[in-house]
């Protein structure tokens, strides 16, 4: 009964606060859309300047999606690259081949270098083969490797593996912030103290906060998932219900953590100061960067981050098509985190009333 009254009050307060509502429900959609547009932008073919090359080489380079421009008698390669907006310059003097790369974007340079090298290798092989067996015209030996994918396909974009993490992160971040500031406001305005002068139990306050903000998180999750599937055309390989389930558990962790940390903040600004301390490290260990490549002790820290498990489960369901039993381990660990935070919250409230 008291819990219901408290939940009603929490929801009413949020509904009255239009900006917070917008932050909860519109901001995630905005960021997701932007991310989608940014990451799925068309890739531009690199521009390569070339000197002293055979027609055959140029054709093969063009086949490899390189925009080739021919030049003659270039003395200053660097200057030519700058003047003509090139990504690289290839000079061929008989056996001596020199590739100069602009390298303002390492990604572009790497791919250009790889393409050029593979073309030149192919050419060498082709010459050797034509020497041995002039009848064989097409060099198909190089293209004979057939590639298949365990997860996703050759069309998989970075955003496909990134978006599951993003969906969970929104829930984690916004719920953490809003519940933490909600309870903090209750502390600073004295209403928490006033509340504890009524026969309400400490557990009832925490339960009401979890349920009230949990409902908001559920709505947010549904909105984000529906939007991702229908508008952004994101494919969710596994079950949508599992995605929602994971996010509700994530919300539970974020809620209890936000409430707990609000105990150590004396103003909204101090609550915001927890973002670089608590939220940002979670992103580093969420799987966006390869965790296997990290130092041993860093990998250990990763395992202490609740969001590590959330991201693992979400990526599992949304990208790899995991079912419930595959992610249950992650869910149990997340629930354990939530349980610990909730118990700590019960103790933290003792500061205001011993009973």
């Amino acid at each position, binding site marked *: *009964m*008291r819990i*219901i*009254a*408290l939940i*009603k*009050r929490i929801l*009413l*307060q949020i509904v*009255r*606060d239009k900006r917070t509502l917008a932050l909860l429900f519109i901001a995630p959609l905005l960021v997701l859309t932007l991310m989608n547009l940014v990451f799925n932008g068309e890739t531009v073919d690199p521009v390569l300047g070339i000197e002293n090359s055979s027609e055959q080489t140029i054709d093969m380079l063009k086949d490899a999606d390189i925009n080739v421009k021919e030049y003659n008698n270039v003395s200053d390669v660097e200057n030519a690259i700058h003047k003509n907006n090139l990504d690289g310059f290839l000079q061929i003097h008989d056996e001596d081949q020199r590739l100069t790369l602009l390298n303002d974007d390492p990604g572009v340079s790497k791919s250009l270098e790889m393409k050029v090298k593979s073309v030149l290798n192919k050419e060498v092989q082709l010459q050797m083969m034509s020497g041995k067996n002039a009848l064989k015209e097409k060099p198909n030996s190089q293209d004979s490797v057939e590639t298949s994918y365990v997860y996703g396909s050759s069309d998989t974009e970075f955003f496909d593996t990134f978006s599951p993490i993003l969906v969970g992160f929104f829930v984690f971040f916004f719920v953490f912030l809003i519940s933490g500031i909600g309870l903090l406001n209750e502390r600073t*305005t*004295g*209403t928490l*103290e*006033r*509340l*504890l*002068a*009524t*026969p*309400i*139990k400490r557990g009832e306050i925490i339960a009401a906060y979890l349920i009230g903000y949990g409902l908001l998180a559920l709505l947010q999750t549904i909105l984000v998932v529906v939007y991702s599937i229908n508008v952004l055309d994101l494919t969710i390989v596994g079950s949508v219900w599992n995605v929602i389930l994971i996010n509700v558990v994530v919300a539970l962790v974020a809620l209890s953590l936000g409430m707990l940390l609000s105990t150590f903040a004396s103003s909204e600004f101090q609550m915001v100061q927890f973002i670089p301390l608590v939220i940002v490290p979670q992103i580093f260990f969420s799987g966006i960067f390869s965790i296997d490549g990290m130092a041993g002790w860093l990998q250990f820290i990763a395992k202490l981050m609740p969001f590590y498990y959330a991201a693992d489960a979400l990526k599992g369901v949304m990208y790899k098509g995991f079912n419930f039993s595959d992610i249950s381990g992650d869910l149990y660990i997340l629930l354990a985190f939530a349980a610990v935070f909730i118990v700590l919250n019960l103790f933290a409230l003792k500061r*205001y*009333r*011993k*009973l």
Partner: protein
Amino acid sequence: MEHTVSIQGVSKSYGKHVVLEDIDFSSEAGQIYGLIGPSGAGKTTIVKMIVGMDVPEKGTVFLLNKKMPNLDILQQIGYMAQSDALYSALTGKENLQFFASLYKLNKAERAERIEYTSKLVNLTSELNKKVSNYSGGMKRRLSLAIALIQNPKVLILDEPTVGIDPQLRVSIWNELLRLKNEEDKTIIVTTHVMDEAEKCDHISMVREGSIIANGTPSQLKEQYSVETLDGVFLHAGGEMK
């Protein structure tokens, strides 16, 4: 007669700082008790012990013969904190409804108490306004209405008239007197305004964590042979040093 509130030998300190030292206090139904003293004397700490939000290091606090802290007894305590603890995004009515639903009241009782208390503090016509649009005095009145919402036997008001204009102060005090006389409530008020202290049936002077004087206003004036309570305050304080 039975004591509604009874504080026995209570001491409390935060670290080395002694906040309360050996406080004894008791109250009976149908009386107004004033806790008088300068800011930082320990009045609010006493109030918080009565409400059960703070526990004494030594000694015990009894409310209606139950040892505090006790959750069930909180049903019988109306508490008005020093600062207005209100939800400013909600209307006055929603605030009252929320607090009413935290107590054991059925639906009809709740509606009746909301109507009664809001009429009492003269807020009936303002109930549908958001609290963020209330004036300081209106907030104070709403806080008082919330303290009365569950019809408690004991009312504990921490500086109820701070920041309230004289006219409203008079009307609040008239209401307190009526509650005492007609409904037999025990009312404990902290204040540092001496003319309010005059209206109490019984006064306890609090200074530096101790109760330094006790009695009716006239008893105290007689004891220190002064004309006003201000004089008592100064004399009693001077004696300590």
